[in-house]
């Protein structure tokens, strides 16, 4: 595991509250994500992980508080200002969300076509390089429907990286993928984090993946509507006193008879 980077805060969440139709999901969250780190948001189902992510990327407006991306509040600006913030990050959606009506390379080229004045051959070259980076150069002219789940995810990463973002948000990186494919994706994240110094914000609940890639994690809880733990995965696993955190990291059940679950294999780090 790489050591925790001590960069400047690139995302600042300040007194952030999220609500749907007056029903509060998350309340008064405060944390910072530093440039260059791989940051994981953990928690059980329905605890607001995806909600937090969707607010960070500006799809929803916070009910209170604010989220700053590189010092700017995405919910407070519009037009070109907002565009500038959007250009700083890419998003990988749970389903990949590649556009079904375009081939893979058209998907990756789209942001380049829309936001740059590069000539077509340059765009194709850049797009091919992105696809090669995620190991999909051979599949460039296939439609998303012709790709496997893991390939779609990698294709979506290539598209999210098209404009060289500083931050990549990932919603359930390895949801619905087999362990080998998701380990491949973990390696991809690690290598991107290492070579391009991209900041990753990953929503997940895959323990092996968390141990392999995350520098720091926060854990959200449904009842508390907020953060119950923050730190490196190892810290949380070994030192947290909160039973909910221990349950999560030691893969225990919530009932009292589930005491004999396997401890995750930590030799990989």
């Amino acid at each position, binding site marked *: 595991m790489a050591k925790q980077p001590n960069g400047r805060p690139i995302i600042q969440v300040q007194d952030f509250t999220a609500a749907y139709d007056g029903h509060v999901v998350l309340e008064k969250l405060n944390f910072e994500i530093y440039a260059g780190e791989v940051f994981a948001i953990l928690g059980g189902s329905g605890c607001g992980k995806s909600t937090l992510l969707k607010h960070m*990327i500006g*799809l929803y407006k916070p009910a209170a508080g604010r989220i700053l991306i590189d010092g700017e509040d995405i919910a407070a600006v519009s037009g070109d200002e907002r565009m500038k913030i*959007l*250009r700083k990050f890419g998003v990988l959606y749970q389903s990949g*969300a590649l556009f*079904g009506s375009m081939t893979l390379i058209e998907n990756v080229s789209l942001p380049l076509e*829309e936001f740059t004045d590069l000539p077509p051959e340059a765009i194709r070259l850049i797009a091919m390089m992105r696809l090669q980076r995620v190991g999909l150069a051979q599949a460039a002219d296939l439609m998303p429907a012709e790709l496997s789940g893991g390939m779609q995810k990698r294709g979506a990463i290539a598209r999210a990286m098209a404009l060289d973002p500083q931050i990549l948000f990932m919603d359930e990186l390895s949801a619905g993928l087999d362990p080998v494919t998701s380990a491949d994706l973990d390696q991809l994240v690690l290598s991107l984090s290492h070579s391009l110094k991209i900041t990753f914000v990953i929503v997940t609940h895959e323990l092996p993946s968390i141990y392999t890639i995350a520098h720091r994690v926060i854990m959200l809880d449904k009842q508390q509507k907020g953060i119950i733990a923050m730190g490196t995965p190892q810290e949380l696993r070994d030192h947290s006193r909160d039973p909910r955190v221990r349950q999560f990291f030691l893969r225990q059940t919530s009932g009292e008879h589930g005491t004999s679950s396997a401890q995750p294999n930590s030799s990989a780090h």
Partner: protein
Amino acid sequence: MAPVDMAAASHNDVNFHSEGPRDGTLKVTIDGRLDADTTGIIWRRAVSTIKAANAQNVVIDAAGIEYCDGAGIALLVQLRELQKRKGGNFEIAGLRPQFAELLNDSSANFPTETKGMPPREGIAEEIGHNTLEVWRDIQVLVSFVGELSVGLIRTLIHPRDVRWRDALSVAEAAGVNALPIVALVSFLMGLIMAFQAAIPLRQFGAQLFIANLIGLSMLRELGPLMTAVILAGRSGSAFAAELGTMKVREEIDALKTMGLDPVRFLVVPRVIAAVFMTPLLTLFAGLMGLIGGFVVMSSLGFPLITYYHQVQYAVSYGSLVGGLVKAFVFGILVAAIGCLRGLQTGTGATAVGQSTTSAVVSGIILITITDGIFALVYYYLGV
């Protein structure tokens, strides 16, 4: 084996027997197989026996149960809960250890009664809700019209920003591919109208005026209306389904976070395609209707030239252009409402179905209302 025989066979697999209550104790004996097939046979009897007995103590002799799965355990849990609710004692004797373990794991610590449907709202409440709904829908529609207008105006200023390739493929799907059905419907409409009109008009020797009827109705009224309805059914629904699926698959969110406006990116090409295709389709529909009318006229012995002159005499340029203007507006409406419903899609496959239905229904309603407005405007303008 017939199902009846099976039930009979299962019946022999399980036995339910009760004694008492004697001295406040009801003794129940269950033996045989308690599985998903057999438990149902004794369930009602077991429950009603316990309820009717109203005994202080219930003892179940389970020594004879050879096999018991989830269904059987559920029965025992149900009986236990029934007895507990009455404040009585409940005891199961002789249950084999492996089944007893299953039973101990199954504490019925969950609400056994489902909440059911929320109470039906009264008529007044329903009217109120629906009115609010319609009002909100109108608000959304107005703001969408605004967004769309901005998108279209931007298109005029920066025509190169439009995804013309998308627009062309939509134009092909909504326009060219609709030719056969538009042709069929309009031809038959012309033919049938002419035929029906021929019967009464013959009594007055006025069959020639069939040409006026067909010309005016096909070019000015029914042609644009039918074309728009077909467009709503074929393309409005398709737009809603396409955009709805994109919404469900998070593709719309992906566009937004890429900084691409879904209205400009998805709606504008579709509206442009529909706007150019509808008048063309309408012209084609008018022509096919006229041909249908001519089939009847020629069977009545009128030559083509007579029919042609009569139509030309009856239909002014105003009527023709009026029809095309209507078609133009209908095209915008159908495409816009289709796209709007698509973008409004909630989550899940059902939501896509709902928005598709809603796209067609709202499309047809809008077309009809607008047609009425056009009739009024044209009347006052003297078109």
